[in-house]
């Protein structure tokens, strides 16, 4: 399927020749453009109908800047199915052929950038990683729940990023090695321990799936706690830094809000065992606070 912008050179060249007033020219171009676009849209629709193998997608639409679109609604698109087509592919097809105003975030299309997490058929998934063939029709595509919708499928991620930054997600060892160019080596076993937690792509699916995070805005959320795990479990940082990290983690709205519903683990597109990491941090927090005197 094509993600190219439809060609418009022909239209432009014909209007160039019939040059009258610049205003009329602009209007003509716009009109021809619109007519061309409508023509293309109709063509695409007919092609989709003629093609038996189409997928019906229902997409959440909302646009605060257009009065008629301020009331959220669902738009239905028929997208010709191709083998291996993902939900993101179908959205791009719908945008390119039916409605250029359809808005959603996407970038790498290979589950690394973490920008296209949607609420697809009732669960949080990455659009680029979800095969259409695995879903029941019509495929319902909504923005991530528990986040404010900015437009169509775009949600406000500010709160999620704030929580991520709240756990100080950067490597910060107590002491640096002597030599200036010396490496800070990690043991293989320790690397293995934190391996899964480093795979987070900040897509926000886990936070959106979490019941507790929905009700408690201060809760750090699975992704942030996973980030905290990645650094708290890193042996190179040293004991003092770990204690500081645990202080952030074990506060009232930290790890103890987790009620092990496993929603986050279930939806994580990178298969990070989030609940396991949260539970391990709970145990760490208890261990560091237990004193036998």
């Amino acid at each position, binding site marked *: 399927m094509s993600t190219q912008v439809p060609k418009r050179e022909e239209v432009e060249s014909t209007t160039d020749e019939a040059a009258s007033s610049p205003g009329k020219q602009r209007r003509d171009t716009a009109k021809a453009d619109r007519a061309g676009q409508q023509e293309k849209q109709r063509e695409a629709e007919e092609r989709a109908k003629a093609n038996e193998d189409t997928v019906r997608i229902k997409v959440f639409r909302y646009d605060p800047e257009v009065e008629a679109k301020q009331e959220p609604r669902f738009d239905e698109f028929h997208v010709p199915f191709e083998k291996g087509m993902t939900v993101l592919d179908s959205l791009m097809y719908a945008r390119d052929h039916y409605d250029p105003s359809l808005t959603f975030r996407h970038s790498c299309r290979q589950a690394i950038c973490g920008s296209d997490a949607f609420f697809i058929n009732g669960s949080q998934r990455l659009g680029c990683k979800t095969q259409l063939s695995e879903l029941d029709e019509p495929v319902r595509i909504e923005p991530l729940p*528990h986040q404010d919708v900015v437009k169509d499928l775009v949600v406000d991620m500010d709160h999620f990023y704030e929580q991520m930054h709240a756990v100080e997600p950067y490597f910060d060892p107590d002491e640096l090695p002597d030599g200036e160019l010396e490496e800070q080596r990690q043991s293989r076993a320790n690397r293995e321990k934190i391996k899964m937690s480093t795979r987070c792509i900040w897509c926000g699916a886990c936070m959106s799936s979490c019941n507790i995070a929905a009700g408690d805005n201060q809760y750090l959320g699975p992704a942030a706690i996973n980030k905290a795990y990645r650094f708290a479990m890193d042996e190179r940082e040293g004991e003092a830094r770990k204690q500081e990290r645990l202080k952030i983690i074990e506060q009232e709205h930290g790890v103890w809000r987790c009620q092990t519903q496993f929603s986050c683990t279930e939806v994580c597109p990178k298969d990070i065992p989030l609940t396991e990491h949260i*539970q391990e941090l709970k145990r760490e927090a208890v261990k560091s606070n237990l004193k036998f005197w």
Partner: protein
Amino acid sequence: MSQSYNRGLIEDFGRWREFSAGMWAWVFHKFTGWVLVGYLFTHIAVLSTALSGAAAYTGTIQTLEGLLVVRILEVGLLAVAVFHILNGLRLLMIDLGIGLESQDKSFYASLILTGAITVASVPTFIAGAF
């Protein structure tokens, strides 16, 4: 960004068909927990009739046990308590970090065990109620 749209809570009970095992376990655990707390009060109320004498207590118990509804409720109470115990063990394992990959299976296991124990208890609870 001029304004945004707050969709509120999406995952309410209307979406119960989409709940996963861990979510159901949580819902049932909360529910059974509250039922047990509620039962505790009725339990204390019944026991406290003993304050007004042995006869009053025996009378209360005999009247209650004579009602079929109470017998059925007792079966329900057993089911609730057994599930809460078994799922509590499951949660204990989760807290200890044991078998988190099979948390859904342990939930189903506790459900099945609860069902089996409840069914097995029916003859004992219902005996002589009719």
